């Protein structure tokens, strides 16, 4: 199972993402944003958290126009798997691979804490190893995690069971319908604000991100 992690200037969760993918059994290549292509034979591309291009203009907007993101969109359109976390989620909405947009947190402040989440669907390789409705806790750390989508988009997301996670308890950023993560129509692209890659080692206070990586890598390894 081959994975790549894209690295932008300002990415800061790229190595954590690589560690989490490797721990789940993937071979991982780091790919710099100026690369025009991705390594061949990739199963999954991860877009990590951080502050790509200093969040200039809008979070993820400049990263989404980088050469490697054209290859990322091609990979997704071929049916490849993509995981975008935090800034990576912002990048995926800016490329149009996922609907909606991430706005400034409703409370204005940067939020950094452990956050309760409810797994809304198990019908994806990312979430298949959780229970439907299961509550887990993952770290969040963001300033612009306030997910917004218009009413028609929300109706589609709900009707197609594409909300992967919702915030449980208090909504930390004002996101519409407490949405924390969404899937693409083919269920192979997941974008989420919480950080599963920061929850794969007992020494770091929790391993509730592990099933996400195990499910994804496991599904791809068995193909």
């Amino acid at each position, binding site marked *: 199972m081959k994975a790549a992690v894209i690295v932008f200037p300002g990415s800061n969760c790229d190595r954590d993402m690589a560690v989490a993918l490797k721990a789940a059994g993937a071979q991982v290549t780091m790919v710099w944003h100026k690369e025009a292509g991705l390594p061949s034979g990739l199963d999954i591309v991860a877009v990590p958290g951080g502050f790509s291009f200093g969040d200039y*203009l*809008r979070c993820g*907007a*400049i990263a989404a*126009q980088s050469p490697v993101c054209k290859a990322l969109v091609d990979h997704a359109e071929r049916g490849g798997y993509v995981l975008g976390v935090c800034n990576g989620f912002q990048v995926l*909405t*800016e490329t149009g691979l996922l*609907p*909606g*947009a991430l*706005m*400034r*947190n*409703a*409370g*204005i402040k940067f939020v950094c804490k452990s956050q309760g989440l409810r797994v809304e669907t198990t019908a994806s390789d990312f979430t298949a190893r959780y229970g439907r409705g299961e509550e887990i806790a993952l770290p969040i750390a963001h300033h612009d995690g*306030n997910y*917004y*989508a*218009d009413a028609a988009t929300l109706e589609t997301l709900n009707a197609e069971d594409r909300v992967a996670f919702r915030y449980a308890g208090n909504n930390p950023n*004002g996101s519409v319908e407490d949405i924390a993560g969404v899937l693409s129509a083919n269920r192979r692209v997941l974008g989420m604000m919480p950080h599963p890659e920061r929850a794969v080692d007992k020494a770091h206070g929790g391993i509730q991100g592990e099933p996400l990586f195990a499910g994804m890598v496991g599904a791809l390894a068995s193909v």
Partner: protein
Amino acid sequence: MMKARVTVMLKTGVLDPQGEAVRHALGALGFDGVEGVRQGKVIELDLAETSAAEAEANVTRMCEKLLANTVIESYRVEIA
């Protein structure tokens, strides 16, 4: 050479938390009667283009592709 000014605002109906924070701060400073604040951004471009119509068409494409996120933002282009 032409100048273009692009004004990007959050769409009507999209909550603007920064604008709201500014409104509260104005109230705290004693400025009464500020019923709403919307905060956006202004982007100025120097263009080699000499035709105003071409410049406007080009800048509109720039807005659609990068300068604005039309999921949440509206934009206005002025050419001078």
